[in-house]
């Protein structure tokens, strides 16, 4: 069903529509990171995503900012949306039981006349897990987030990481920008997404970025292996509640990167491994064996179908990662600023070029290979290298 049919009738934005299990979309993505950690306002990321207006249809947009709450960086920030006051109070009661509630506040929002339907109540909670959860705080928070999303009527969690937040909703990217006043926030790492839902509903929870703890993703494409991937992450306790394929990528990466602590390059290869006939021809024996192991061990993590994604993490330093599927069925270009300090990712080159003369010539990362850049880490990968190029690969149990 086309998401368009929901426009105008959608007055409960934080409740998922019923009886819908459809997936797939085609959207615009933009991201930037300042490698020296210098925060910048949301103005540039807003301009980037707005330039690609032909990629969206007004049924969802969102932003993620990393390095947003340095003064509360040790607390989990739950950014939540509610249908009504009752849902907000139920959530506050739930969180009061499960966490030490450090602070909570209404998320600043501004009236946008063109937004369809009544916008939800936007609230932010800064929480710390209880003493019992010591040593496994992340898992504890994740379990509570899934309980909130699956069981608390009229509410869902937009983001649950430390020192970061997701701002998203059902509307055009410029409407959501104005609604949250994105230009007022300052952060060194930004993601922006504009949505063109093709066969999943347009609603506030279905907008990107999708987040779990410190990881957020924005996605253009559709995951045809969604069933396999969903079963894979559900085995590990993840619950898919947002009626779109994209959220499964967030949970897969949380599993691989945070829980299993795989190196980024290994996790990316698990999602988009090269074909066996290409692995067989590889000259680098270590890479060849490693890729075979990845294909065997992480078979259900492989994402089939077209995608380009940008991922932000803050496990250590805020890091931006971007890649496409292994056949390059969705666009992705990258560029750096002239001073080399900012790395840009975008669906279309025009979104980087419009920022001005300071961007150098863009490059197109190769299919299935990640661009990786982080605050304090520099531009680690351009996505044009060979698999595991320049790395020594040793197997612990040969």
């Amino acid at each position, binding site marked *: 069903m086309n998401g368009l049919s929901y426009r105008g009738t959608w007055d409960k934005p934080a409740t998922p529509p019923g009886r819908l299990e459809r997936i797939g979309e085609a959207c615009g993505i933009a991201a930037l990171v300042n490698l020296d950690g210098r925060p910048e306002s949301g103005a540039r990321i807003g301009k980037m995503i707005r330039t690609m207006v032909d990629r969206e249809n007004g049924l969802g947009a969102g932003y993620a900012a990393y390095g947003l709450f340095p003064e509360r960086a040790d607390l989990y920030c739950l950014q939540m949306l509610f249908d009504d006051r009752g849902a907000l109070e139920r959530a506050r009661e739930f969180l009061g039981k499960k966490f030490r509630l450090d602070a909570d506040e209404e998320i600043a929002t501004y009236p946008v006349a063109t937004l369809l339907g009544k916008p939800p109540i936007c609230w932010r909670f800064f929480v710390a897990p209880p003493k019992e959860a010591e040593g496994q705080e992340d898992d504890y928070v994740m379990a509570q987030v899934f309980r909130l999303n699956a069981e608390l009527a009229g509410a869902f969690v937009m983001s649950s990481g430390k020192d970061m937040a997701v701002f998203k909703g059902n509307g055009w990217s410029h409407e959501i920008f104005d609604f949250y006043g994105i230009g007022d926030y300052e952060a060194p790492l930004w993601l922006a997404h504009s949505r063109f839902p093709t066969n999943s509903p347009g609603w506030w929870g279905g907008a990107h970025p999708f987040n779990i703890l410190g990881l957020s993703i924005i996605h253009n494409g559709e995951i045809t292996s969604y069933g396999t991937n969903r079963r894979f992450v559900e085995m590990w306790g993840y619950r898919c509640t947002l009626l779109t394929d994209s959220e499964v990528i967030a949970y897969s990466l949380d599993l691989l990167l945070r829980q299993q602590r795989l190196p980024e390059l290994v996790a990316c290869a698990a999602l988009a491994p090269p074909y066996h006939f290409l692995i067989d021809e590889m000259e680098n024996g270590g890479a060849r064996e490693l890729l075979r192991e990845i294909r065997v061990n992480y078979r259900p993590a492989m994402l089939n179908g077209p995608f380009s994604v940008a991922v932000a993490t803050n496990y250590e330093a805020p890091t931006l990662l971007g890649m496409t599927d292994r056949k390059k069925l969705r666009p992705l270009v990258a560029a750096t600023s002239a001073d080399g300090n900012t790395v840009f990712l975008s669906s279309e080159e025009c979104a980087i070029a*419009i920022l001005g003369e300071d961007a150098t010539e863009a490059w197109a990362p190769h299919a299935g290979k990640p661009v990786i850049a982080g605050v304090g880490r520099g531009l680690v990968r351009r996505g044009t290298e060979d698999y595991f190029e320049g790395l020594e690969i040793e197997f612990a149990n040969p």
Partner: protein
Amino acid sequence: MVEVKEKVEAEVRAEAEPYVVEISALDERGEPKPYKALNEEVHRAAAAGCDVIRLRDVHGQRFLAAGMEGRVRLEVYGTPGNDLGIFMDGPTIEVFGSAQDQTGNTMNNGKIVVHGNAWDVTAFAARGGKIFVRGDGGYRIGIHMKEFRRHRPVVVYGGCVREFFGEYMAGGLLVALGLDGRGNAATHNAGREVVGPGLATGIHGGVIYLRGDVPDHYLGVGAVKRGLDERDRKTLEPVLREFGEYFDVPLELIWEKPFTKVVPASSRPYGAYYCGKLI
């Protein structure tokens, strides 16, 4: 008779000052104009009989010159959006910057010259005209290209291209030179592959020339490698000369490295695949 008339008309045109129209692709607020509004301005200028349409500050507007006919020349400054020159039938577009995806989609006739890169799916299903790109390309370039009698699309990339080059190609000419750098400073690239795997899968017409060698396992189903003969050189010579003129690349530099030719193994690679017995 028609030829004489055209010749006279051309002489008259050459004597007159070209009628140039400049159009900004930004609106009064400094935001990119919607592609439809910009395209309408372009079509109106062409209908008014101008020779050159100069587009300034283009930022991702799609379908520029869509379906346009005639001999008008478009100069694009900035980054044109996807489907540049889609269904175009005659005009010349020169891009002083990079193009995005689907450049020359189903193009019928005319010319597109890109001074930067042009990424994925360039010349998709093109059935005529020429596309010259100084820099690199992405994936699926020249797929489903076709030719009929004198209509023969030509695509030349100065840099490297990626996977699925010429997939399901049915006609035309595809060239990738694998050069690095610009103009006279261009060099034979070292370390970058001129083309990726899945090369010419399902090809059943046309020809591909790649500068340098191509690993056997890069060839798709139905594609075979051949050496170049004198006829190939004759085919390539004018195309490369034209490329060299646009981007200032010396021909001698291009010929320094041998080419690989990729052609279909048969005109009907899947003839026996689905219903071979029926036909």
